[in-house]
């Protein structure tokens, strides 16, 4: 597919990558968690399109096989994390964009790990302080690892959770107010996936534990966000007939009892930190829609907007003072622009 360069779009060259030949392969928009979600990325096969709402877009050629997992602002710069093929496995990829250049950071490595993927940046006060990722021989035997970024170098990889009885996937992490690190992920316990967590205090990781009571159904796709005094976690769990959303708050070193909500088939949560709290975006299968749930700095839900849509592709959230919550998808040419906007008025929650 031919790349359409808009007037405010510029191509940034990344040394050592192939020629720019974009393609349509994105499954959704990657919207930054931090900075109000102003920063976003859309990945195509050999192009990474990075933009800011109402701002310019950068087109960055990337090598085939590169996969971008997350993008976050670092002050006025940005950090994209992902992985790239290496031999018959994968290695972590960290790209920092500043001004008109893209720099590739060194990435931590676990010795002997064939696969390294799903990297999550640990960011404190707009500064990179560490990384959490999964690594192992195959997708069913991944362990969870972390490393500290200090003085421009990675510390030794720290084992958060060794290989378990099955898959360990989807790590998410935040730096808490006390500078400790909180990590959650989905781990197969021999029967089903559970959401588990570990916390790093003074360089030591706590033993991984379940967030909620043990059950016999999948708990998947955790998403984590800071709130006053702790963090709030959202995930999907199977209620016996459908997946629904669940939330739990991490306060005072403990998780609150999970609350279930959402319509049938509530899936694919993502979160955005805002000045007064945050927003949760998730899809529901029935009715076919995407829901934006706003919550305050304590993690209490305050209002929601529901946009009818049958697509599984994740949109980005644009808050419009006049129109409410806007959801914006990729257009037919993979451009992300206002022509795809669908708006929904906020409904105040009791």
């Amino acid at each position, binding site marked *: 597919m031919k790349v359409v360069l808009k007037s405010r779009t510029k191509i940034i060259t990344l040394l050592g990558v192939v020629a720019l030949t974009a393609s349509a392969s994105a499954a959704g928009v990657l919207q930054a968690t931090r900075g109000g979600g102003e920063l976003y990325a859309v990945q195509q096969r050999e192009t990474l399109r990075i933009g800011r709402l109402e701002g310019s877009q950068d087109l960055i050629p990337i090598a085939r096989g590169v996969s971008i997992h997350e993008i976050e602002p670092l002050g006025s710069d940005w950090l994209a994390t992902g992985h790239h093929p290496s031999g018959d496995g*994968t290695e972590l990829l960290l790209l920092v964009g500043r001004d008109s250049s893209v720099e590739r950071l060194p990435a931590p490595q676990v010795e002997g790990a064939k696969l390294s993927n799903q990297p999550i940046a640990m960011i404190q006060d707009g500064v990179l302080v560490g990384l959490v990722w999964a690594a192992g021989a195959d997708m069913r035997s991944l362990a969870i690892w972390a490393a500290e970024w200090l003085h421009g170098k990675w510390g030794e990889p720290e084992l958060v959770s060794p290989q378990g009885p099955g898959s360990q996937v989807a790590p998410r992490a935040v730096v808490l107010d006390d500078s400790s690190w909180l990590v959650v992920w989905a781990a197969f316990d021999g029967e*089903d996936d559970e959401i588990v967590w570990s916390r790093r205090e003074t360089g030591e990781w706590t033993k991984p534990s379940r967030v909620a009571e043990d059950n016999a159904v999948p708990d998947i796709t955790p998403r984590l966000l800071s709130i006053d005094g702790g963090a709030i976690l959202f995930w999907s769990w199977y209620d016996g007939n459908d997946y629904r959303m669940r939330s739990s708050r991490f306060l005072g070193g403990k998780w609150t009892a999970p609350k279930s909500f959402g319509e049938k088939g509530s899936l694919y949560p993502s979160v955005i930190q805002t000045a007064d709290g945050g927003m949760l975006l998730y899809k529901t299968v029935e009715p076919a829609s995407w829901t934006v749930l706003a919550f305050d700095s304590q993690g209490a839900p305050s209002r929601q907007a529901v946009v009818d849509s049958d697509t599984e592709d994740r949109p980005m959230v644009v808050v419009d003072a006049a129109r409410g919550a806007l959801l914006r998808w990729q257009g037919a040419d993979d451009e992300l622009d206002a022509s795809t906007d669908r708006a929904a008025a906020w409904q105040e929650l009791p």
Partner: protein
Amino acid sequence: MKSRLAMQLLLAGVVLGANGAEAQLRYLCFGDSITLGNYDDEYDVGHPAHGYPGRLAGFENGANEPKRLDCPTTGCEVINKGKSGEKTPAGLTRIDNVLNNNPSDVLLLMEGTNDIFVEYDFGGDIWSKETMVFNLKQMAKKAESRGTDAVHASIIWFHPDGDHGTSKNGEVEYLRDEMQSASATENRYFVDIWNVLCPVGLDVHGDTQAECFDLHYPDVPADDDRGHPNGSGYDMVADEFYNVIVFKSPPKAPVPVSPSGSQQDSSPVFVWNRETPRAATWYQFQLENGSGTIENVWLKMPDYCVSGVCTYDPGIDLSIGSYSWRVRGRNPNDKGPWSADKSFTYPSQVFSDGFESGNTSAWSASLP
């Protein structure tokens, strides 16, 4: 639970011919864009032969095209409920309304490609393969709870020129192995598309894997995801579904065990051994006496059978008399033959002259 299919056939008085096993059956195809038929370069959307479901039904043009189920002649129906981009967690909800609105005899279930395609890539989420297996098994259970037989299928390979190259085909193979194992455990048919389109080594046409990819995947620019078959690829998918659901044998006759002979219990539990090889997904049980049929039900195999032995308690209170019972199995292919009749009398007779109507509790059947 009675089988709706069996009841339909009984009520309609249908006599099955040589190719009549599939007559009037409804097949529900559920999955993603591969079920829907995207990239079918032979039959457009809307053409009755579109995708593998249309080919399975036998709607292809031309006198020499394979007829497979030949629904235009036999009256069967193949319903396409594929949905582009769908992943298994969403399918697990969508399938409820699909099953409710399209009552069917057989569910053909092939989903999971999108789960693997976008996991932790291109903005996609990731969940474990264990969860994928759970989701697919739950979909099958939802079908079976409605009296619909479920058939699992493996998903197809990613083309090596696609977005992920061959990096995710290991995950496809793992899911295939797990679903094959789960199908055996749950006693469901398994359609191994992975081993047909395009296997390591030679395919059914004698083509190498590379040749198979060239022939049976779309010849489109390199920027395509290369995750769908083309028209001839859909032919192969349809063939494999057809081979499994039609050409496999119906189950052989099971073997009744008890009650037999004399029966003391007025509420007997019926026991029979499963056929060899075990192939029935449902059993029909019939109990008769001289006056006619007392019990005639279809029983879902996993609910009544463990390790080759089935037990059924009809919860009846027998009156004095002679009885005969029999069982037979069925699967998505067809019903099998009836077992031999097993006869018994109630209550057991101490004396041959029939002097058993008084209080016999103090009598012994043995002579002093």
